């Protein structure tokens, strides 16, 4: 238990240990710890950012979906509208066509009737003339009574 030169030796040894610790042990460990802390906080921040981005993307996708649905509904209603329009148009044109055909046919019929009447009139007139001729052969000169015949014919 005597105080002796061990005291000096211990002090020197102590100083050397502290120097070594300060030079080679402390800085690398604290640096690594600081770096890791930074890395972890960066990672957490990135995670947080990713989460908010995901949220945004989800929101955006919902919006897009909604829009698309709306558009589709619009397209469908437009198509329906157009279809009914086409049907209506077709109906109208068919009616028109029918009417046109009908009126054509009517006109033709009228024409036919007219023509038939004309020919009938002609025939009746010629028949009448022939009858009258036969009756009047002797007494009536066709040339003399042409005026009269013509009048009769127009009255028929």
């Amino acid at each position, binding site marked *: 238990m*005597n*105080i002796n030169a061990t005291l000096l030796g211990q002090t020197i*040894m102590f100083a050397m240990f502290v120097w070594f*610790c300060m030079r080679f*042990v402390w800085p690398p460990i604290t640096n690594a710890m600081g770096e890791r802390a930074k890395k972890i906080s960066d990672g957490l921040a990135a995670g947080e950012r990713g989460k908010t981005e995901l949220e945004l993307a989800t929101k955006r996708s919902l919006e897009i979906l909604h829009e698309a649905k709306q558009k589709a509904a619009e397209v469908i209603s437009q198509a329906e509208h157009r279809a009914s329009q086409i049907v209506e148009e077709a109906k109208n044109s068919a009616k028109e066509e029918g009417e046109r055909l009908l009126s054509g046919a009517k006109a033709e019929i009228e024409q036919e009737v007219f023509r038939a009447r004309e020919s009938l009139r002609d025939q009746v007139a010629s028949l009448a003339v022939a009858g009258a001729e036969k009756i009047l052969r002797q007494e009536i000169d066709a040339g003399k009574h042409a005026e009269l015949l013509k009048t009769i014919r127009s009255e028929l």
Partner: protein
Amino acid sequence: MANGTVTSSEYITHHLEHLTWGRLPDGAWGIAQNAEQAKEMGFWALNLDTFFVSLFLGAIFLFIFGRAAKAANSGVPSGLVNFAEWMVEFVEDSVKGSFSGKNTLVAPLALTIFFWIYLMNWMDLIPVDYVPSLAKALGVPFFKVVPTTDPNATFGMSIGVFILVVYYSIKIKGLGGFIGELTLQPFGKFGLPANLFLEGVNLISKPVSLALRLFGNMYAGEMIFILIAILPFWVQWTLSLPWAIFHILIVTLQAFIFMTLTIVYLDMAHQEHH
């Protein structure tokens, strides 16, 4: 484990004797064979056991932490690195808690103090007879394995701390500031002798209390282990086991106290209070 040929007091004194190397009475250099020879060697002698055990333990500490420092990176820490970082963080927290200045020396100093003292204190838990018996078998007369039961070791450290305290006091406050602190308070300049006496005691008590607290605790603990070892072998464990378990606490606590007080003293050295 005192046997018939050795008395209790011989056993105890043998266990408390250092392996001292110095100049023997006949003028030659060698190892003291008894307490008187060791005393006669005077100041220029070396306690080989203290010196080499503390050197070995300090080297172990630096080796472990040096390896951890080399392996440390910002990735996932391995077990050793994890442990080292845990300890570093613990010391860093202690320093942050009590040291307000800015000094890169304080934290590594605190870590070294804590671990070195911790390991040296742990030597106390080696059964008291193992190392001296082994030494005897190897022809070495004494071997005291706990360096912190040697005041040379504890004073060696506290003087190192004291030098730092004085150095930083002068560096931060200037020589005038340091002397002023010693002489001009608490009673003002007319009470100068009283101031010098009080502040001088205050200053000197720092290293003395650091060294003696650690030494006293460890020496007393060692002494009790030796006393327990004198009892019959079948009753020893009933006392040595509780004492050893209690001692684990003391070992840690003393290392922690030395570290914390070092930080506090250095903090006081960095503070200007006028």
